[in-house]
């Protein structure tokens, strides 16, 4: 970790992390219902953005994560209704189904890359949407499903569930960055052929990461179903759920931990504030920020910070201008 080019070394991160966890633990007791709902939404997007970021690290930029969100929502909702399971068990069991579907999709998608991967995932998510809308007997169709509330509607417990998931994601990404796998993943992104020639299990890694990212997104979908107690195809297959993590990671800084978290927190808050001001069309903020960050800060906000700090450090050390290492150059 200490020598990783994208991390800041020293005790700083530990202090910040511990302070953040303590702060986030006492936070829900000081928020009213509305702000608590915001906090839960932010935490959901933090996990989703981190999952998407790790997926993108393998060169798989998905534009269809909502497929797994909706799948997770419907599978866990159906499990809890048909088998009378409690929400947590239903979500846990649904990960098996979502994981199987994700692994299967991933295996099918292996040869498709870049923009075609993006379009393919987008189309797949739409297929799930059409299926849930049309298979009325199984899913209730456009009328949707009413499901029991999670934790008997206790929002504080929901908050802690999401906080636990988000922390688990942060720790997992951190461990991944420290491990040897990280080199393999980075190599796959630059060139799968070269990575494969050097003995990186390309297909296994791609399928593995895709499945894990799909399962995490599916858990979030399941949580969403029980948290709002009502789902329909329009709400859980909303394209904006696919776009959100993409924008959050690009805006915050791709292939980092802080970037997606920062993106998720700022953009969710921006959007919620805007939603209270205008009736519809609050997503305009996503569009504008996406345009501006790609044109002006393609390495994202956190990438900019990292570049600035590494420049400062290296001028202090020996005056050598640092290489532009943050933004993965592509000819």
């Amino acid at each position, binding site marked *: 970790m200490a020598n990783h080019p994208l991390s800041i070394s020293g005790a700083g991160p530990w202090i910040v992390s511990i302070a953040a966890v303590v702060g986030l633990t006492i936070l829900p007791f000081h928020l009213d219902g509305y702000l608590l709902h915001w906090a839960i939404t932010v935490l959901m997007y933090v996990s989703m953005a981190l999952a998407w970021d790790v997926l993108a690290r393998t060169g798989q930029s998905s534009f269809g994560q909502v497929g797994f969100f909706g799948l997770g929502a419907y599978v866990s909702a159906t499990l809890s209704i048909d088998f009378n399971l409690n929400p947590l068990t239903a979500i846990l069991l649904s990960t098996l189904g979502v994981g199987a579907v994700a692994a299967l999709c991933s295996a099918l998608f292996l040869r498709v890359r870049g923009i*075609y991967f993006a379009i393919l995932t987008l189309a797949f998510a739409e297929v799930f949407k059409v299926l849930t809308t049309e298979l009325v007997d199984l899913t209730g169709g456009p009328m949707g499903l009413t499901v029991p509330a999670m934790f008997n509607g206790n929002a504080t417990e929901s908050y802690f569930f999401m906080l636990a998931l988000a922390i688990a994601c942060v720790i997992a990404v951190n461990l991944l960055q420290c491990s040897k796998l990280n080199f393999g993943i980075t190599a796959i992104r630059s060139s799968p052929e070269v990575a494969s020639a050097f003995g990186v299990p390309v297909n296994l890694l791609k399928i593995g990461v895709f499945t894990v990212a799909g399962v995490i997104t599916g858990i979030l979908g399941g949580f969403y179903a029980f948290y709002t107690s009502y789902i329909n195809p329009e709400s859980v297959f909303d394209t904006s759920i696919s776009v959100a993590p993409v924008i959050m990671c690009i805006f915050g800084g791709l292939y980092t931990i802080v970037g997606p978290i920062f993106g998720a927190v700022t953009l969710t808050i921006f959007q919620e504030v805007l939603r209270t001001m205008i009736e519809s069309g609050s997503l305009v903020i996503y569009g504008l920020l996406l345009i501006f960050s790609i044109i002006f800060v393609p390495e994202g906000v956190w990438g900019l910070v990292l570049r600035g700090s590494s420049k400062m450090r290296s001028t202090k050390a020996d005056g050598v201008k640092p290489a532009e290492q943050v933004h993965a150059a592509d000819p």
Partner: protein
Amino acid sequence: MELFVQATVNGVITAGLYALIAYGVLILLGILNIVNFAHGEFVMLGAYLAYWAFTATGIDPLIMALPVAIGMFLFGAAIYQFGVRPVLNEPAVNQLALTYGISLTLQNLALIFWHSDLRSINVPYADISVKLGIVNVGLMRLAAFLIACVAIGALQAVTYYTRIGKALQAVSQNKTASALIGINVNFIHLTTFGIAAAVAGIAGTVVSVLMYTYPFVGVPLVLKAFTIVILGGLGSVLGTLLASLVLGLSESYVGTFVPDGSGWSEGVTFLLIIIALLVRPQGMFGVRDHG
């Protein structure tokens, strides 16, 4: 039998619209190497322009095709200059995200200013229909189809018989060599983006009479255009036309003959796109696929 012919005619008419939209996506891919998600929103803007012109002055939406095309050309050129040009040398996924951002912005601006109402145009000749063999076809639908055909034909003629068309072909083959022989590549890019937007605008006027106009009307249309271009192959106008027919007809047949088929016909596009990409994962020939 009559039902079958009717479904076929409807499918062909829709295919004309699809081909017109896909043509814009095709030239952007061929000449700029860029996948433009915002293309559907250009169609949406064209449809709104035709709609507002009709409600304000009563001008026939299909006559509006030309002024709309000019307006959308300028709009597209501006989008290229300030949005697309800075990222032309960035990774493909960044370009995709940028055009997605433009698309999202235009959709939501439309939502803010014009709300999500479904708007439709009632032209005075809407009820007149023409007998073609054993089926009746609405005069309006026929006119819309003809406009799509004329627009594609005109563009093909420009590409093959004019100086600028030859320059377009040259740039699509080799940018460096084109620049060396004195073609202003950036100007060609600008013009191409403008033309693509103009074609989308014309498609928009067709949309305004064939279907409802609303802020998200472009979303399914642009996905259909991607499907067609992937199915048809890059640089192949004939392929695009055939793929449009495949999509238009299969949607029409599914919608007509499958019980409760209108919902399922939406899925046809996605099924085709998935099959096309799984069979030919590199997408269209000759397009870079890194990212």
